[in-house]
């Protein structure tokens, strides 16, 4: 437990750096929020007025100080585009992003890990070639392209799935909020119509993210399994007559999972980035599309809030990966 706190404390400098860098970036980026919001016909006077109201006429150190003080009070500032506190916006939109990212990750793991294992066990056989093709396709196709392709095929041509317009179709209303995850909330409330609608909307964007995340996971699983299958202790297990399943799952896979878990952490952070584009393509009301809209409008506070949220998520993610690795690997437990 002390180790956990120590790790958390160790990530504080990184968070501080993120705060400084995003603050500076939003100030030096071209575009001026006050001009944007005053509108094309505004006079220089009204622009100056808005500037003063937003505190943008102050010197940078003072603006920074005010930002830090507000941050410590849990205030991420106001969004000029939505007129809401950034914290409220983020809290409302984070579950949408989280639900999408996690579903994408589950899709990817569900396909990539068995595929990687099969490719390693039957190296050079058909399944290995299938794995190689999928991995190559996964890394070479950008997410917005796969996203649009899937929409074209499954919505436009085949009409199997609903239009890519957010988390629910127009006629469904969101379930009562418990977790913010529609699939979970709808299940809790027993609203299965809503659940089906949410699931139908989720399939394509989750598949898009899943295809993107599949490649690195399958590749690492295959490589890691191959390395472990060649290890001496696998030869011992075989020489002891243990069954194929025991050798491959209990002996090989558990050892091979260690690098896969580490890769999952990286893949998850790639997904957080890829989310921004996928949410845009599928009109998904998550924090990624929120940040893009704010950025285009030179709306600094939401962008800062978004980057900070991502940084915190990233720290928590790495912490989780660490804990899982320690649970799996006795050597890591003793090492610290």
């Amino acid at each position: 437990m002390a180790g956990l706190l120590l790790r958390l404390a160790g990530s504080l400098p990184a968070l501080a750096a993120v705060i400084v860098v995003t603050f500076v970036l939003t100030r030096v980026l071209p575009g001026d929020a006050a001009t944007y919001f005053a509108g094309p016909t505004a006079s220089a006077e009204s622009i100056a007025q808005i500037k003063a109201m937003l505190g943008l006429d102050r010197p940078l150190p003072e603006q920074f100080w005010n930002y830090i003080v507000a941050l410590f009070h849990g205030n991420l500032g106001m969004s000029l585009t939505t007129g809401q506190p950034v914290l409220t916006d983020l809290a409302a939109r984070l579950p949408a992003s989280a639900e999408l990212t996690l579903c994408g990750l589950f899709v990817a793991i569900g396909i990539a890990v068995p595929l990687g294992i099969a490719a390693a066990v039957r190296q050079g056989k058909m399944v290995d070639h299938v794995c190689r093709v999928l991995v190559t396709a996964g890394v070479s196709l950008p997410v917005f392209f796969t996203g649009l392709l899937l929409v074209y095929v499954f919505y436009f041509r085949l009409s199997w799935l609903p239009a890519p317009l957010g988390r629910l179709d127009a006629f469904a209303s969101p379930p009562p909020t418990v977790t913010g995850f529609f699939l979970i909330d709808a299940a809790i409330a027993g609203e299965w119509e809503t659940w089906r609608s949410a699931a139908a909307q989720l399939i394509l964007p989750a598949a898009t993210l899943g295809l993107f995340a599949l490649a690195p996971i399958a590749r690492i699983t295959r490589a890691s399994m191959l390395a472990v299958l060649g290890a001496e202790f696998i030869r011992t297990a075989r020489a002891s007559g243990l069954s194929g399943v025991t050798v491959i799952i209990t002996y090989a896979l558990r050892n091979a999972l260690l690098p896969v878990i580490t890769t999952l952490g990286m893949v998850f952070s790639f997904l957080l980035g890829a989310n921004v584009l996928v949410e845009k393509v599928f009109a998904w009301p998550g924090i990624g599309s929120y940040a893009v809209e704010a950025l285009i409008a030179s709306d600094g506070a939401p962008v800062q809030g978004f980057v900070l949220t991502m940084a915190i998520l990233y720290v928590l993610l790495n912490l989780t990966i660490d804990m899982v690795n320690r649970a799996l690997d006795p050597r890591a437990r003793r090492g610290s």
Partner: protein
Amino acid sequence: MMAAGANVLAVDGLSVAFRTRAGTVAALDRVSFTVGKGETLALVGESGSGKSVTAYALLGLLDAAGRVTGGSASFEGDDLLRASPRELASIRGRRVGMIFQNPRAALNPIRPIGRQIADVLRRHAGLGPRAAKAAAVEKLREVGIPDPARRAAAYPFELSGGMCQRVMIAIAVAASPALLIADEPTTGLDVTTQAVAMDIMARLAAENGMGTILITHDLALAAERSQRIAVMHAGHIVEDAPTAELLAHPRHPYTRGLLAATPTAAGTLDDLHSVPGGLPDLRRADLPPCRYAERCERRVPGCDDPLAWRELTPGHLVACWNPA
């Protein structure tokens, strides 16, 4: 040769080839030997002579590139070389145990040692999870691990090399096999630990009438621990004799070379000799019938004739046209 009934294992004409980019390697060529009940046969030879390949071929553990190209291995009524993968899997661990060199790497690094032994017991002794766990502790006690109940929960990295080798032995003999193959079981262990590990194997062999194949490059170890020695060179067995006889009257020039290259307590460094040359390239098409011929100082014109076994005295076999 001994009467067939007394043999646990009779290998006859075992040949193994490996496919490589540079051509086919005839790694083993007509290897024959027997192991009697309770007997320890030492397979001795320099690195690359085919000792380990012999063991892997018998257990069906060769790499994908390796293939048994001929011979038979009669083991308690079964031919190991013709057994299906299923049959082999039920023979391995249950009726034939194997010990590997480098015990730490040969154990699963993230599984407690007790569970690794229990895995074998559950597979071969038909024990349930609880019974297997208790039996695993008992096996650890048998190989002399102190405080076995607590140690059963330890991981290989928490144990010394000698302790790991004891665990390895416990895994190999957990199901009381009729044959134990020990592949360089003492490499990397200090001398005291070596002796302890060998004592444990000898005791188990004596108790259960288990035959042992001791694979080693250490002639001194073989001399001390085996009843018979088979000397391997480049995939051939060149001499096979009772241990005392072989040490007293080595007949094959390679055996004599090996003996001269083995340090003794009484001798000085100047008394040590090296065997000239190296193993021949087994990919060559023009490999001479006797693969030692090109290193041999006793070579005579007759050496180019096909190699044949000759029993010089009862139980002492040599594959040489001009034995000493």
